[in-house]
């Protein structure tokens, strides 16, 4: 932790994420208006003292909608990555520890999943389902575990041959204990890095889906659907597109900075 503080960029990422979490938790306090309250008389107002980021085509306060959108983005990012970490780690450990036909089966499954362009796979699945926030999270999670599976399998393969695992087997420790106590803590570092970087990716995917109208549905505010709504007015009301865009940029950047920082930190080759 102390070394994390020394890495300035990673620390900046951590601070930004902490700020975003606070905003999401305290959204009712941070917002200046009801994000859903329409005020057609004051529609498309430029940023001012009353409306920090201006108002949209229905007169809703853009700033407050962005504040509430933070909740959506973080939730989708964290839950989707949580699902992908869970699936990826479990499959990766099974594949790497047992080897043989189980490994072959899982790895060919990964190969098949990787054959589909992810975004089209998501689009296809979601067109059969009701587009809502829960489905978006699950689908992003279930289409992004392959890289992690490969990562965990690789780590597991090398750890399995270490002498401390051989020793644990000679001692007759139960396989569950070997997997959970001896192998898992040793593969968790790269998983953490990959997951942190993955949150940014998941947030981007959610924004893209919402932009296409397949994600979070209006009137609930999401940065993606705000961008989509704003594109029709881009010539007369730039603030509708710029502020949600900046919000996405900042959030993804924060997670990427933290992820890169963690990678430097947890990689034994880079620590002195």
């Amino acid at each position, binding site marked *: 932790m102390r070394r994390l503080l020394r890495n300035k960029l990673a620390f900046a990422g951590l601070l930004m994420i902490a700020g975003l979490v606070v905003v999401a938790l305290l959204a009712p306090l941070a917002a200046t208006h009801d994000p859903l309250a329409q005020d057609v008389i004051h529609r498309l107002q430029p940023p001012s003292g009353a409306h920090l980021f201006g108002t949209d085509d229905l007169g809703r306060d853009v700033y407050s909608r962005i504040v509430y959108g933070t909740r959506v983005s973080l939730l989708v990012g964290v839950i989707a990555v949580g699902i992908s970490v869970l699936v990826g780690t479990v499959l990766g450990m099974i594949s790497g520890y047992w080897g043989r036909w189980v490994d*072959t089966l899982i790895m060919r499954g990964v190969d098949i999943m990787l054959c589909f362009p992810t975004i089209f796979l998501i689009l296809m699945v979601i067109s059969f389902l009701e587009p809502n926030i829960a489905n978006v999270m699950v689908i992003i999670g279930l289409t992004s575990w392959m890289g992690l599976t490969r990562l965990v399998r690789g780590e597991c393969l090398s750890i399995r041959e*270490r*002498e*401390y695992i*051989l*020793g*644990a*087997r*000679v*001692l*007759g*420790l139960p396989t569950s*204990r070997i997997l959970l*106590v*001896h192998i898992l*803590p*040793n593969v968790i570092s790269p998983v953490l890095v990959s997951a942190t970087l993955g949150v940014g990716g998941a947030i981007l995917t959610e924004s893209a889906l919402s932009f296409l109208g397949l994600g979070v549905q209006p009137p609930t505010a999401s940065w993606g659907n705000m961008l989509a709504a704003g594109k029709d007015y881009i010539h007369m009301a730039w603030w509708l597109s710029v502020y949600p865009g900046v919000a996405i940029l900042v959030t993804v950047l924060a997670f990427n900075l933290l992820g890169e920082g963690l990678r430097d930190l947890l990689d034994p080759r880079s620590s002195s």
Partner: protein
Amino acid sequence: MTSLLEAEDITKDFHIEGGLFRRRRGTVRALDRVTLALNAGDSVGLVGESGSGKTTLAKILTGLLSPDGGRVLWEGRPAADYSRAQWAGHVQMIFQDPSSSLNPKLTVRTLLTEALDVKHRRTEGRGGSTGTLRDEAGVLLSSVGLSPEFLRSYPHQLSGGQKQRVAIARALAAEPRVLVADEPVSALDLSIQAQILNLLLDLKDRYSLTLLVISHDLAVVGYLADRLIVMKEGRPVEEGPAGTVLDSPRHDYTRTLLAAVPGFIR
């Protein structure tokens, strides 16, 4: 008299696999019809260079690998008759590099108590209580010459010699009858090696252990063992009482090994 641990006609091949469907590309014979018997109280040395199959044999005796041919017997009964936990109470092993044989993420206390817990389950049918396990771990540590304050340490906080002592304590936690030591000192500092060699002899006496010492170093094996087996390319080439093998080696390879020992420690 039935031997404690026997290996009968052990053969082990390693396959080189490749391609999409993991076809066999080639085969290397690591062990070729090796027979070995350990009687209770024996101290046997296995000498050979890399590729001689000595570590493969150790892995087969400890149950880490299964042989392709031949069988392993405990008191005359095949290894397959015993569970993994029971086998752990027969044969334990210590490895060459104590830095990699202890999980870096666990404290010495966890490393010892988890091993003790398995032993309790095996002998009493249930795990030991936290208090019992902690006390026993402390006793184990002092039996390998470390003070109980090391229970709180992580492996990276220990020196090489201390780590090897912890690894030995962990193996002893299972209360084995046979201890296999694979290059027990070759990764240690010079002034520490004698400490560990003496400790192994002390523990052998105190716990009536049967020792199988594996090394490429004739001096280490000669110091610890009463009986020597010289291995080359998966086959024993010479076997006999340590004194006889060292004084009047019959096989050329044994002579080559002896010639590499510096004069002043012969």
